[in-house]
């Protein structure tokens, strides 16, 4: 039988604030074990959480960038469970008043709805030493601010799931609230998945796959789970509601705990943190601080600038690159020309030099000037590449580099006409042959004129003037 997968995601994204959500410890990834924690985030008796306002602001930014509505009244709750990496034995989170609700992301014609985004604290990490048979706790990650983005079950395939996670990551990076480095755990995904027979309206029993930490494992876990559940149903069995773990080496999932073993988290309002109440003005200010989002830029590039979808996608895939492009075309609106030059020549140089777009020795406006010089035939296409190479090495204005290095092409038409006259006078025989119909000699005459004019001569003008002179004479 054919089945339709019904998939919802929970994306955990660590916010890139400089300090943790309830204390002033560094929230940076890594660090020597237990050096980025304090009595507060280690949950020592008598300590109290102090909310980092920046984390709330970042959560709002995340919500706005995913088209969510923002709750003006924000309160926190405690989620109680025992685990050695959770020092207070409760996680401060938002249960019934999440900071953002009702968002959505378009993944190429289909909208995946977002149910809610709430702000919470991350737990620590356990390091298991199987050799010694001991487990050690590292609390550096404890209290790093985290948002959990919960979708509606709108996703129907592994590819859609991947597209959604990519789109969300891109927007969070644009908003500057999360670096979305899955390999460092700053973005982790739980997948809720069930299947139902094609044509059925009855949802199947779902399994939850926890803690997927790469796009590849999201895709593989979903594909495995679809086939696992399909086989169960095909053979007349029943899918059990449970939490499963994805095994990256084997590409399979295995049961972690059943619904009966599920925790009772005993949520209740966090008494130590007063509610955070936003005004319309607060939200407007946060909105104003957000950059133009990638989906808006994509639309602009393809519809208004006439770029191909592939080129547009390539540019928006990196906010710094897209900002660079936007600044360049603001100076000189040859949208396609600048896009080509950036995507081919600039990216080539970046790769070759292992450089990043943020640390260039020249500005977007200087790239615009370079493209303009080439467009206006003041330099040749090859010269443009050479000038870019020099700009990479030492910076500098393209026009100055062109002048200093003799790349500037002569546009003095009188000089060209004079040279042509001289060459034609000295090569009467070739001129006659041309007039008799031998076009071959054009190249010879062209070469003579170019040699006479020297480096920096403009082949386009020479060609035009020579043609005119030969035909007119």
């Amino acid at each position: 039988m054919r089945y339709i997968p019904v998939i919802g995601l929970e994306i955990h994204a660590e916010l890139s604030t400089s300090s943790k959500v309830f204390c002033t410890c560094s929230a940076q990834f890594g660090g020597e074990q237990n050096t980025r924690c304090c009595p507060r985030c280690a949950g020592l008796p008598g300590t109290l959480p102090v909310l980092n306002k920046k984390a709330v602001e970042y959560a709002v930014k995340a919500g706005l960038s995913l088209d969510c509505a923002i709750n003006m009244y924000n309160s926190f709750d405690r989620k109680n469970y025992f685990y050695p990496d959770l020092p207070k034995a409760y996680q401060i989170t938002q249960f019934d008043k999440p900071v953002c609700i009702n968002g959505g992301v378009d993944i190429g014609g289909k909208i995946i709805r977002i149910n809610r985004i709430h702000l919470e604290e991350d737990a620590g990490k356990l390091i298991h030493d199987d050799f010694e048979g001991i487990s050690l706790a590292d609390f550096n990650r404890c209290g790093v601010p985290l948002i959990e983005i919960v979708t509606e079950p709108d996703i129907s395939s592994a590819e859609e799931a991947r597209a959604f996670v990519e789109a969300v990551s891109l927007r969070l990076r644009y908003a500057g609230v999360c670096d979305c480095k899955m390999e460092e755990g700053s973005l982790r995904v739980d997948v809720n998945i069930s299947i139902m027979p094609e044509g059925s309206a009855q949802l199947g029993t779902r399994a939850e796959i926890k803690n997927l930490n790469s796009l590849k494992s999201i895709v593989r876990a979903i594909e495995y789970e679809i086939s696992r559940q399909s086989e169960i149903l095909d053979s007349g069995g029943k899918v059990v509601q449970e939490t499963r773990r994805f095994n990256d080496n084997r590409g399979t999932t295995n049961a972690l705990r059943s619904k009966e073993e599920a925790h009772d988290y005993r949520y209740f309002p966090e008494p130590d943190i007063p509610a955070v109440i936003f005004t319309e003005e607060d939200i407007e200010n946060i909105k104003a601080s957000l950059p133009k989002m990638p989906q808006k830029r994509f639309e602009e590039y393809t519809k208004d600038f006439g770029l191909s979808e592939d080129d547009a996608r390539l540019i928006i895939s990196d906010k710094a690159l897209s900002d660079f492009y936007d600044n360049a075309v603001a100076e000189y609106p040859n949208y396609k020309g600048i896009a080509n030059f950036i995507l081919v020549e600039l990216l080539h140089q970046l790769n070759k030099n292992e450089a990043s777009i943020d640390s260039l020795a020249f500005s977007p406006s200087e790239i615009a000037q370079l493209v303009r010089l080439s467009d206006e035939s003041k330099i040749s296409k090859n010269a443009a590449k050479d000038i870019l190479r020099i700009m990479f090495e030492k910076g500098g204005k393209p026009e100055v580099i062109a002048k200093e290095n003799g790349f500037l092409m002569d546009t003095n038409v009188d000089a060209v006409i004079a040279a042509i006259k001289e060459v034609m006078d000295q090569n009467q025989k070739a001129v006659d042959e041309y007039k008799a119909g031998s076009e071959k000699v054009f190249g010879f005459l062209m070469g003579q004129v170019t040699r006479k004019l020297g480096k920096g001569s403009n082949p386009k003008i020479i060609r035009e003037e020579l043609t005119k002179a030969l035909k007119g004479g």
Partner: protein
Amino acid sequence: MEIHKHNLRSLRSMLDKREISAVELVELYIKRIKEVDHKTNSYITVCEEEALLQAKEAQKLINSGSSGSLTGIPVSLKDNICTKDIRTTCASKMLEDFYPPYDATVVKKLKACGAVLLGKTNMDEFAMGGSSQTSYFGGVKNPYDLSRVPGGSSGGAAVSVAAGLAPVSLGSDTGGSIRQPASFCGVTGLKPTYGTVSRYGLIAFASSLDQIGPIAKSAEDCGIILDSIAGYDSDDPTTAHRGAPGSCSKIGMPLNNLKIGIPKEFFGDGINEDVKAAVFAAVKEYEKMGCQVLEVSFPSLKYAIAAYYLISSAEASSNLSRYDGIKFGYRSKNGESYEELIKNTRAEGFGDEVKRRILLGTYALSSGYYDDYYKKAAYVRQKIKEDYNRIFNTCDVIITPTAPTTAYMIGEQESNPVKMYLADICTVTVNIAGLPAISTTCGYDGKGMPIGMSIVGRPFDESTIIGVADAFERNFERQEVSI
């Protein structure tokens, strides 16, 4: 008069006039503690060395003429208030060897004033109880009658003041834990408005109810202490942004326009006749001073005990989850897995009353019970606030008994937890509504045991209740205990 019977104003004057040095004063108290406290067991830890060092520093300030109201004054602290590198046990085996790496905000403030930390006082384990008999370090005894309880949970704090083992003390009050022991020990105890004093460094019992406050010989002494410890604290976001409290500003002001509310429900069948008579007599005194007395009603009182025990136990069950033997505190020697280790640690480290509250709170928050218990309690909380708001529309203060009885015999009630819980009826509503209240002695029963009355005020109106309590204290002869 013996020095340990002096009040703060008098000690201040003696210190400033060099009639006694800060070191002599501390030595005197340490000597008394050594002589007397084996009978009362009010201290868990005495900080002799640190206190003498602090006293020397305080004396320098006094000598330089820059002493504040508490410079050189010895203070005892309830042992749930964190003191840097001084063990802070909560009277529990769980924290028997816990040495906090930081001072509570109130401790920082006291140190900044030049106050001298005498020691850490005994209490009910994790502040859960009203008798100070659940301590891992043994029960506390009432100096008026050593066979009786001192009340609790700040029993050690109240006894240290009553028995002259500290001039003033800090306790904590979640449902009456400052006022009730103050009442049982014949001293004055103040529970400030929620948010007046920082809770940073107070080991949490029930976060939405806990508040640190002073126990002293008089309302004025309580006010002097409160002024030194109150104020917004960036380490505790639940503290209020308010200026200096000026707690003693209404002392000596005429009371002839004051309206006193007497909620009849607080004088019902469960209240001992001696207690009722003493409180009514005190109210008569206020009438003589020109106050107007109004009978008011407090219909939500009948739900208060249930709501209090649900809210406080729910919060406690969460606050006390961190004691898992992993990072600090007691760890069981038995347990192969994490689950076993944590079970054994908590089974061995907590006493029965603490376990009872954790069970109750966990149950109240469990899925399927939350709406019936925790949520309903939160609703009652709202009703209690409404009752107070309504009364304060017509009254300036409310007077009630502090406890239904005077101090009872050790061993008399401990076997009946529900009866113990019901005895909190007069105090818990104040915490539920976050209001300030002060308990002062208003009489003695037939056996000579002190009776306390509580004066409850509007939010952040500590100065009025201190002024009102002081007016009574001036005309009341306290029977000092000799021990």
